C-alpha cells in the first residue's frame, strides 16, 4: 500500500510541508498543479535544485536534479528528477577510469535510468552540486564555491549508449541544458547549510531503518519511502531485529529501551541523535578533496596524531576501522588498514589511524592502555605510536641483491643500459641463474622460519583466547 496517504503532513505534526510558488497547470490534465518551490521540513526547495533522495533499501542516498514539481488530483506530491550517477553505479561501463571521490555523472540520453517520478517525500536534503564542465554555456565557479560544494560533475553518462562524454546536449529529459549548468545568478538556494542537509538525511534514515520493510514497487527504478509516523505503527522491536544493516550493536540495546519507555516524539529525537553518529558518510569533511594518504600520514606523524592499531582482524576494511574508532571513542577519524604483505602476521591486522589532534591520539592510546577494547570474541586492540620511515628516503631503504660490475657498466651504451634495466628472465646456464638460486634458497628458508614463528604464535594466542572465552562473560 502506498505510503502517501498521509495527505498534508502538517496534520500529523511530524514533517512540516508548505507549497511555495505556484506554476502552471498541466497541459493535458488541468487538475495537475505544477509548482516552482516548496518547503519541506524547514528547508526551501526550488525547481532545478539538486537534492538527495532516499529509498529504504539503499546504502547511500541518490542524488538528482528536480526538474518538475507537481501535485496530482489525488493530492499526491510528486517530483521528477534527472539522476546524477555515482561512478560506482556505472562501473561496468567505465572500464577503470579514475574518478574523484565526490565526482558525479549527469545522466543524459533517453531510457531507463535517466529520470524518475518520485514522491516528494523521498527527498531528504539539498545537495550542492557544482558543474565543472568547460562548456561555454556553463558559468565557471570560484574556488570558494568549489570548496563549499558537495559534489562536482563535468561529464554526462548517456543511459542509452552507456558512454561517458564531456559534451552536453542541448536538452536533457526535455529540459534546457542551461538548467543543469551552474546557475547564472548565485541565489541563496544554490548554497545550503550542510548540517541541515545531513541531519535531514539522518532522520529519514532512522525512519526507514526502523520500519524495516520498504514498500517498493516492482520496477527497480521506482523509489518510495515510509513516512515517519507510519512506521511506529509497525511493531518496533520486530523491525529493529529485521534491520541487518546496522553496525553499532552497542547502541542497539539503548534504542530498544527507549522505545519501550518513551513517547513517539522523543523516540524520534533519540533515534535521530543515535543515527546521526552512524552516518559519517554524509559528513561534509568527507566531501572535500584530500591529500594523498602518504602526505596525510606524514603530517599526522609530525603532529603526533597518528596511531597504530594492532590486533585487528585482517578482514576489516578501512571504513570499518573508522567506525570502530567512532564507536569506541566517539571520535571521527580517518583510518587505513595496512595491506597484507608476505611478511604480515596472519593474527595481527594493523591499521594506521589519523586523529584530529595530538590530544585525541594521546587520549586514545591512554584509553587503550588502561582499559581494554575487545573486538569480537577475544581481539584486544593495542594502540601505539608507530615509527615510520623517513619521508623521501626511498633510495636509501635497504635492498640487497642487485649486483653490477662497474667496469662493464661503464662500457654499456645507453640502449643496452635501458634494455637491462627492465627485466630479465634467466637461463639455467648463466652465473646469474645460479646466484638467483642462492637468493631463492635463502628466501625459502626465511619463509619457513616465519611460518614456524606464526604457527607458534597462533598456539599461544589460542590458549589465551580459550581462557578468555571460558572465564569471562560476553
Amino acid at each position, binding site marked *: 500500500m502506498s505510503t502517501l496517504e498521509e495527505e498534508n503532513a502538517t496534520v500529523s505534526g511530524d514533517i512540516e510541508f508548505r507549497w511555495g510558488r505556484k506554476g502552471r497547470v498541466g497541459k493535458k490534465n488541468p487538475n495537475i498543479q505544477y509548482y516552482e518551490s516548496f518547503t519541506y521540513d524547514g528547508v526551501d526547495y526550488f525547481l532545478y535544485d539538486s537534492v538527495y533522495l532516499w529509498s529504504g533499501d539503499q546504502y547511500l542516498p541518490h542524488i538528482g536534479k528536480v526538474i518538475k514539481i507537481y501535485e496530482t488530483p489525488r493530492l499526491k506530491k510528486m517530483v521528477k528528477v534527472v539522476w546524477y550517477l555515482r561512478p560506482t553505479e556505472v562501473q561496468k561501463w567505465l572500464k577503470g577510469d579514475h574518478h574523484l571521490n565526490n565526482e558525479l555523472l549527469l545522466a543524459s540520453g533517453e531510457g531507463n535510468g535517466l529520470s524518475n517520478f518520485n514522491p516528494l517525500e523521498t527527498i531528504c536534503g539539498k545537495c550542492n552540486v557544482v558543474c565543472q564542465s568547460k562548456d561555454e554555456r556553463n558559468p565557471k565557479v570560484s574556488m570558494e564555491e568549489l570548496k563549499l560544494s558537495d559534489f562536482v560533475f563535468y561529464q554526462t553518462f548517456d543511459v542509452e549508449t552507456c558512454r561517458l562524454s564531456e559534451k552536453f546536449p542541448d536538452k536533457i529529459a526535455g529540459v534546457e541544458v542551461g538548467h543543469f549548468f551552474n546557475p547564472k545568478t548565485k541565489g541563496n538556494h544554490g548554497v545550503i547549510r550542510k548540517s541541515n542537509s545531513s541531519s535531514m538525511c539522518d532522520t529519514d534514515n532512522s525512519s526507514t531503518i526502523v520500519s524495516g520493510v520498504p514498500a517498493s514497487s516492482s520496477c527497480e527504478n521506482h523509489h518510495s519511502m515510509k513516512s515517519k509516523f507510519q512506521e511506529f505503527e509497525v511493531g518496533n522491536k520486530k523491525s529493529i531485529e529485521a534491520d541487518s544493516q546496522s553496525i553499532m550493536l*552497542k547502541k542497539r540495546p539503548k534504542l530498544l529501551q527507549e522505545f519501550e519507555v518513551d513517547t513517539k516524539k522523543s523516540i524520534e529525537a533519540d533515534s535521530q541523535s543515535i543515527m546521526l553518529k552512524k552516518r559519517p558518510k554524509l559528513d561534509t569533511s568527507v566531501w572535500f578533496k584530500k591529500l594523498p594518504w602518504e602526505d596525510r600520514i606524514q603530517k599526522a606523524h609530525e603532529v603526533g596524531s597518528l596511531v597504530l592499531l594492532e590486533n585487528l582482524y585482517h578482514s576489516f576494511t578501512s571504513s570499518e576501522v573508522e567506525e570502530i574508532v567512532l564507536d569506541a571513542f566517539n571520535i571521527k577519524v580517518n583510518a587505513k588498514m595496512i595491506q597484507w604483505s608476505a611478511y604480515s602476521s596472519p593474527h595481527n591486522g594493523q591499521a594506521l589511524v589519523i586523529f584530529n589532534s595530538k590530544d585525541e591520539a594521546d587520549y586514545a592510546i591512554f584509553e587503550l592502555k588502561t582499559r581494554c577494547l575487545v573486538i569480537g570474541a577475544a581481539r584486544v586492540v593495542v594502540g601505539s605510536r608507530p615509527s615510520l620511515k623517513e619521508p623521501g628516503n626511498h*633510495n636509501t631503504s635497504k635492498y640487497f641483491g642487485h649486483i653490477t660490475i662497474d667496469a662493464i657498466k661503464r662500457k654499456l651504451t645507453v640502449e643496452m643500459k635501458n634494455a637491462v634495466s627492465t627485466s630479465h628472465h634467466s637461463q639455467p646456464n648463466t652465473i646469474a641463474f645460479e646466484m638467483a638460486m642462492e*637468493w631463492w634458497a635463502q628466501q625459502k628458508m626465511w619463509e619457513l622460519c616465519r611460518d614456524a614463528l606464526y604457527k607458534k604464535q597462533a598456539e599461544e594466542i589460542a590458549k589465551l583466547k580459550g581462557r578468555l572465552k571460558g572465564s569471562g562473560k560476553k
Partner: protein
Amino acid sequence: MDPSAEEKYAAFQEKVKKSIHIDNLSPQVTEAVLKSALGQFGKVTAVHLIPTYFTSGNVCALVEMESAKQAEEIVAEMGDSPLMVSGMPRPVRAQKAKVEMFEDRPKKHERRIVCRWMDPTHPSFELAKKIKNLTKRHAAEAQYLMEQELADEQKLHNQQNETLQANYEKYKLIDGAQGDGALKRLAGYYGTTLDDC
C-alpha cells in the same frame, strides 16, 4: 541502480583473482617497469605499488592481469624460473593476490562489529591485558625475524658481490693475457699447443 553490496564484492573478488602480489622488488622499480616486465607474459591491466610506511619495508606491488588464468600462469612460471626486475640477480617473488592485500576494498557484507570496553574491574581484565602483551611480544618477534632476514640478505649480497668481482678479475686477466700474446708465448715456452680460446 546502485549495485548491491554483494555485486560489488563479487566484482572485487574477480579483480583479486586476476591479480598478482609481487615483492622483493628494488626500491627503484617503477610501475612502468613492472608493467613492461610482466607485459611479456600477458596483458597487464593495472599496476599498483603498495606504499610502505614502516622502516625496513619490503617493496611490493599488486599487478592486475587481463584474466585469472594469466595470473595463475605467471605465478607458476615465476616459481619455476627466476624473473629479475631492474637488476640482477635477485629474483622477485610472486604469489596470488589475497583480498586483504588490496587497499580500498568493499565490505564483504554488512556485518556487526561488536566491540566493547573492558574496565579494570571486569574479571577477565587481567586476561585481556595478557592478550595485549602477547600481541606486542609477537610483533616484536616478527620484527626481530625480519631484521635477521635483512642481515642475512646483506651477507649474501656481499658474498655474491665478492665472488663475482673476483671471477670477473680472473676473466679479465685471462682475456688480457690472451690479448697481448702472452698466452701464445707461454704455450710456445711449454711446448703445448694453444686451442682456440
